[in-house]
């Protein structure tokens, strides 16, 4: 099974994790991205995420279905709206039969989400506002 969403409310980590659990699959790897305070010398105070929601869901669904077809349960949920420090921005979870593939597939998914899903961050740093964060 797979579940993907753009969420306007805080992510419920336990509920998303529960969707992955399955007696077929003994290894569950999750990646959760949170709002980090420091990037080198830049201090972040908040992040506003926006999405091209319909297309983002389509892209996440393609990715999730691709990994599901290898033999996995997949959850991909990205938050939009105003996030404070340490708030969860993204949850990517993979349940697979064995742990090595669960790690590989989860890392592939978050890397690909960051490359090609139309979601943007506007980062409120103490010195200025940055689209996409420090380069």
């Amino acid at each position, binding site marked *: 099974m797979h579940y993907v969403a753009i969420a306007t409310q805080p992510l419920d980590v336990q509920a998303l994790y529960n969707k992955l659990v399955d007696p077929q699959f003994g290894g569950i790897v999750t990646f959760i991205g949170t709002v980090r305070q420091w990037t080198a010398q830049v201090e972040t105070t908040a992040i506003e995420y926006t999405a091209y929601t319909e297309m983002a869901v389509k892209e996440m669904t393609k990715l999730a279905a691709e990994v599901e077809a290898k033999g996995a349960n997949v959850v991909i949920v990205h938050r939009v709206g105003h996030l404070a420090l340490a708030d969860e921005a993204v949850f990517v979870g993979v349940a697979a039969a064995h742990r090595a593939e669960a790690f590989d597939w989860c890392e592939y998914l978050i890397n690909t989400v960051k490359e090609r899903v*139309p*979601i*943007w961050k506007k980062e409120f740093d103490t010195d200025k506002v940055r689209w996409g964060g420090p380069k």
Partner: protein
Amino acid sequence: MFTVKLFAVLAEQVAQNEVQLPLKTPITAATVKQAMAKKFPQTTPVLTDCLVAVNQTFVTDESFQPEEVREVALIPPVSGG
């Protein structure tokens, strides 16, 4: 005229979430960017790094007839995660 959706820095630069642009046939990623640059020259630097989505799919060299196009969007560099 076609409605072109804008996001993030691009929407901010023109203070609109969508704009009306004339697009020559056949429609490609290049014709969308050219029409945007012509109407909003201030977006030219950002447009260089933008992708184009037609019907919610990224396009590069594909070309479309007007009747095939339900939705067009300009996609600045993504930064989710």
